[in-house]
């Protein structure tokens, strides 16, 4: 009897050991793992219109989603080969660290503590944002400095939560935070009157205002209380993968700068401009430096489009979110979007 028990126990222990060791160490293997798996596992939000949001039939769209698609186009040649993982602000880094996702494109603010302290790498900025406040029009308030004694709905585990305190303290205002783990819950609580104020990044305010019962009843206050550069994140131990994600974003920005878009990419292959030739992989060996085929960049442009196209489609003035380009305009047109040269 005891022998049987020991045998069972040993098998059990062996199985556990196998399971654990198969899940360990992802160092410099993300690209191989993605190719082998046949899709990119991409961490996104649980629904921020314009950034990452699923429609009724489960199709994801948004400026962050386009980044996931760009990486899939670069690595696998097919922008559709993405599996989306909706994550709360609270869980996102742990899931990335544990290796369940390959990249995080979830309107995540780049800060020193996260970049340096979490063993993660921020590889760029795909949206320059800043935190703001939304209040009901009936509150008759036109400045965040007048928000004394207010109840503020906020998403927990975010930089928003920290900036909120800094701002109210610096302005000697009292407030009471009501924290939720999901943005949707925080918005619903604000909408139903549990809070007087809802705070998040201004893009998020615009996006979430579309989720309130009557969007016209709410206004976004003029103050921007923080810098929120939002960008994609990868694990800190895989330089090749970090480069792939970083340059997928840069290709989209540079494509806009040189007026290369999804429609004209093929016809521009025969252009005389060497910058565009390199961008489309006709000249140079950009793919080799990333251990990808040289079609990686044209795949991104053809399947996802350039940054401007992605912006206009997802958050631009003609969408429900309706955000002007502002800071997110190209450096050459008065914004601060500036991609290092793709060469």
């Amino acid at each position, binding site marked *: 009897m005891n022998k049987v028990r020991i045998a069972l126990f040993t098998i059990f222990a062996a199985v556990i050991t196998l399971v654990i060791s198969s899940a*360990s160490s992802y160092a410099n293997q993300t690209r191989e793992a993605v190719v082998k798996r046949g899709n990119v596992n991409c961490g996104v939000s649980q629904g921020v219109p314009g950034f990452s949001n699923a429609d009724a039939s489960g199709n994801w769209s948004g400026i962050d989603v386009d980044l996931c698609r760009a990486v899939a186009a670069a690595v696998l040649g097919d922008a559709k080969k993405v599996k989306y993982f909706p994550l709360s602000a609270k869980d996102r880094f742990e899931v990335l660290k544990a290796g369940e996702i390959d990249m995080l494109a979830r309107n995540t603010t780049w800060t020193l503590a996260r970049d340096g302290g979490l063993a993660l790498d921020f590889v760029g900025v795909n949206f320059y944002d800043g935190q703001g406040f939304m209040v009901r029009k009936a*509150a008759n308030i036109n400045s965040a400095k007048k928000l004394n004694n*207010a109840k503020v709905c906020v998403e927990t585990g975010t930089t928003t939560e920290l900036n909120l305190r800094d701002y109210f303290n610096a302005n000697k205002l009292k407030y009471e935070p009501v924290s939720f783990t999901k943005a949707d819950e925080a918005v619903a609580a604000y909408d139903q009157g549990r809070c007087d104020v809802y705070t998040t990044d201004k893009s998020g305010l615009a996006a979430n205002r579309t989720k309130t019962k009557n969007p016209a009843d709410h206004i976004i206050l003029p103050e921007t209380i923080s810098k929120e550069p939002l960008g994609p994140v990868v694990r800190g131990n895989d330089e090749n993968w970090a480069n792939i994600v970083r340059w997928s974003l840069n290709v989209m920005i540079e494509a806009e700068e040189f007026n290369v878009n999804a429609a004209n990419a093929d016809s521009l292959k025969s252009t005389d401009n060497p910058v565009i030739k390199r961008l489309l992989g006709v000249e140079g060996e950009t793919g080799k430096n990333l251990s990808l085929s040289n079609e990686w960049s044209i795949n991104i442009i053809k399947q996802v489009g350039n940054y401007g196209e992605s912006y206009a489609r997802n958050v631009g003035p003609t969408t429900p979110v309706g955000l002007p380009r502002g800071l997110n305009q190209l450096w050459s047109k008065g914004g601060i979007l500036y991609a290092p040269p793709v060469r």
Partner: protein
Amino acid sequence: MLGIKNQILKNLQPRYLIPQVLLIIIFAGIIYYFTNNAGINMKARNISSGFDFLNTNSGFDVQFSLIPYSGSSSYGTAYLVGLLNTLLVAFIGIIFATIIGFIIGISRLSNNWLLNKFAAIYVELFRNLPLILQIFFWYFAVLRALPETKDSITFFSSVFINLQGIYIPKFIFKNFHFITYGFVIALITIFLLSYFSKKLFYEKGIAIPVFKYSVLIIILLPIVFALIGGTTYVVEYPLLKKNYGIANFVGGVKLVPEFIALALSLSVYTAAFIAENVRAGILAISKGQKEAAKSLGFNNSQSLKLIIIPQALRVIIPPTTNQYLNLTKNSSLAAAIGYPDLTGVFAGTSLSQTGKAIEIIFIVMMTYLTISLFISLLLNWYNKKIALVEK
């Protein structure tokens, strides 16, 4: 029966010893593997570890705290805030669950048809719905349906109920310690009274209505002490303050909806289980006991109070301990509605702000374990105290 010495000797025989030693080695091996594996992987990913973060500033505020706390307090303080909020909701939940559970449990055995059926429906309804749904029901359906602040439901122009919480007046005492003295002396008097009345009853057969006297003493003595000591109080009423178009109550005591919803759903849910324990306990007492009480001239409430319940408690307490433990652990569902409990503040917000997943989850697990073991210990002690001493 084998003595302890014999048992040890028997266990030292090779055919028993070898498998046991093997088992321990395998177990130790697994533990070592887990920790070592975590260590290697953390090192490979440059994840720092350690508990130093507990002393650094948290930087976030919490909606509801029993101790002074702000974002300039440490993560260690944030832990305490969460712990106390968990203990508060568990304590309130246990008290209400016990009261409701006993009432419903006894009602289920009542001869009154209406009462009986009501109790049966209560039990079947609340124990068969998932707790998280019940929390959502109270929080989103009931408490969110309350009026806005400016249209608060008002009682005696001092209690205000609205969507943002319940506001009640706050009593601020001066020389409060005299009331405490009165209370302590009342407790001592009651203890002595019950001791001597028991003695009197067994030796001379004179019965004193101890319960009635005790109630009188515990109410009167603190009041007398307060009058002598000159205890005064001021009432701080919640005041509606308007800041532009935003109206909020300031002052008084505030009960936030997240707390109310959680305490309510935990007590209502757990009460259904406790009610069944109570019913089982009472039914476990043989019919003869009740008949004996009746033949001795006890009326219904006397036989319940003096004969049935004391015996039933022996059956009721062990499974009810489990329900108390469940309630305490279930309070971690608080995170779903944003009540800042241990799981929400520490395993939630603090974890995502620091990234110290292993350390924080370890601390939180140990904390829940300690709370649960403490509750078990307390009730085991009580159970032993009232257990039948068999010869």
